[in-house]
């Protein structure tokens, strides 16, 4: 059993019915009191988004752009409410300016979940190219990021990364790889 799960065994027992990747993400957000979740949608994220909307604990809504969502959760953090942003790889590619001019210099624990497109079966050349920009941007700002490929590691990585972001007041990107989510494949 992962350490993170052992430490939260009582809560985990109550919520163990859903061990899908999106169920684990939802419960990890809730356990860390992250209640504000703006997003720009992605096909792979659809079950998570649907379940966030269905749970009254969460305030979740679409924004027109990813940087708008980053602004919203940054303001909420300063006002004492925790948030996280959901997006796709191509959405992350729009964020270099707001990361470098808001989240990092103001030391805001921005929590990002990025559904990874552009690899492991991508069928759109542009998506595969934009995907290659993501990790260099993260590394250029020395931002913490993890690529999650295994269901049995998801809760540990997500829970620990959220706690680290908050205690160190630093952004984190959790990249949800197709090995975890199934990704999006060509279906005509």
């Amino acid at each position, binding site marked *: 059993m992962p350490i993170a799960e052992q430490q939260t065994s009582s809560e985990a027992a109550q919520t163990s019915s859903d061990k899908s990747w999106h169920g684990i993400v939802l419960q990890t957000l809730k356990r860390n009191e992250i209640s504000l979740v703006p997003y720009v949608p992605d096909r792979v994220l659809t079950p998570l988004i649907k379940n966030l909307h269905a749970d009254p604990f969460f305030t979740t809504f679409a*924004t*027109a752009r990813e940087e708008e969502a980053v602004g919203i959760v940054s303001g909420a953090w300063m006002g*004492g*409410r925790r948030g996280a942003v959901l997006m796709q790889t191509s959405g992350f590619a729009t964020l270099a300016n707001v990361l470098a001019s808001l989240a990092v210099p*103001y030391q805001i624990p921005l929590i990002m979940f990025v559904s990874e497109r552009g690899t492991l079966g991508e069928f759109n050349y542009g998506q595969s190219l934009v995907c290659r920009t993501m990790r260099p941007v993260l590394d250029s700002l020395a931002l913490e990021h993890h690529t999650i490929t295994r269901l049995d590691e998801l809760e540990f990585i997500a829970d620990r990364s959220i706690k680290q972001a908050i205690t160190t007041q630093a952004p984190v990107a959790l990249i949800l790889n197709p090995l975890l989510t199934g990704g999006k494949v060509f279906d005509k």
Partner: protein
Amino acid sequence: MKTDARNTKVMNRFDVTSRLIAKLEHEEAVIGGIGNTNFDLWAAGHRPQNFYMLGSMGLAFPIALGVALAQPDRRVFALEGDGSLLMQLGALSTIAALKPKNLVMIVMDNGIYQITGAQPTPAANVADIVAIATGSGLANSAWAADEEDFERLVEEAMSAGEPSLIGVRIDDKPGVGATRRDPVQIRERFMHGLGVREPL
């Protein structure tokens, strides 16, 4: 709609900002957008509830929305330039959909990117910011006709049951002050001002 036909007085950003600050009596939060907008907020007198943006052009309203969602009992004002708002018009619809009644948006509209050399914005002479806001779903949007009208609109917004947007036509003057560019201290002191944290 021709914007040059509007029956609105051309006001001054620092003067209007000072008038707003003078009306705040309940530790209202104020988010100052990039550039001259937050320079004049700074020059109007620092308050613990002020937040100054040093980048992320266009995000004054989204940041203010986040504060408003976190603290629904506090009024949150956001000051944004017209050029900045043009970068993030979609945020108006997001705010209209969420309807935070404690959020007041003020747009300082001079039709130019004053700080970069006074180049006209693409909206200058063709678009109407308040009409854009109304069309985005923010029904409680209005141009301030003059300084007294601005103060009246601010007072109305203090007790409004929906988000408010006030358009202010301003002159081409630069900001009066210059914000101290210390982002960590700006953020930390803002959080103290909002009662989220205590100083060490």
